[in-house]
């Protein structure tokens, strides 16, 4: 299998734009996907209870802004909490 040519000239404008946009959310210290996974149940419950997750778990919130896959998993978990709720 030959390696893809990854010359930056091939990076389309839109990708570059998205990359630059993601810099606005970029912090020196960020959680990794594993760190998010470890607490996403706690995070989803806090959100479900209407707590201020941005203040309580800012690093997790920040990761969700940047990581589409973790965000999907979190939203799926929130779906279950909300739709399972008999109220």
């Amino acid at each position, binding site marked *: 299998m030959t390696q893809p040519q*990854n010359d*930056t000239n*091939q990076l389309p404008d839109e990708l570059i734009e998205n990359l*630059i946009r993601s810099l606005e959310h970029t912090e020196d210290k960020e959680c990794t996907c594993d760190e998010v996974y470890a*607490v996403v*149940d706690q995070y989803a419950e806090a959100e479900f209870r209407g707590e201020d997750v941005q203040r309580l778990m800012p690093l997790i919130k920040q990761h969700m802004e940047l990581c589409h*896959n973790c965000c999907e998993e979190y939203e799926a978990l929130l779906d279950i909490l909300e739709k*399972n709720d008999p109220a």
Partner: protein
Amino acid sequence: MNARTNESWLEDLRTTGPVRDAALDDLHAIVSKGLPYALSRWLSPDDPLFTPLVEEVSQETLLRVLDQLDTFEGRSMFTTWVHKIAIRIALTELRRKRWQDSSLDELVDNEENPAPERLMADPQAGPETSTERADMLTRIRRILDEELTEKQRQALVLLGLQDLPMEEAARIMKTNRNALYKLLHDARLRLKRRLAAEDLNAQEVLSAFESR
């Protein structure tokens, strides 16, 4: 089904015999009731794959829960922790299914293949492209050339251009999702620092991009 506390879930699942079997049955019911709520964004409940997937994932979840029981720290309800495990299994499977039809070789080798045409537009081409935008793009492309490693570029192409899920991109790059996130974080940090060193910030760059 009577509601268990976190402690009684752990206790029942750690014992043997009918008590454990009953707890596993209850857990299976909870997972297979919850999972469809999470999957409906991905797959229609009418899809023939839906019910078998729920069953397959529920079974796999129980095995993983038993295997990882000692790692439960009690920071959430036990059932929320179990749903989290079920979602990771289900979405990993669905994301893989979504990609298994596309030939891996083609995906990696044919750089033109998956990119929609509008993404491949030449920055210099359109008459509507302003000089400011073109100059900024050229400058940023040079910075990317200088700052990004080969691996970081590959990750950006796989995730950003070919829109692969993290796990799939990680598999192609012979790494894992967590390491891939770190690789991209390093790339973003490098770029952010380089822009700062050049007295630029993301906002300025973006507004130059927007001037058409």
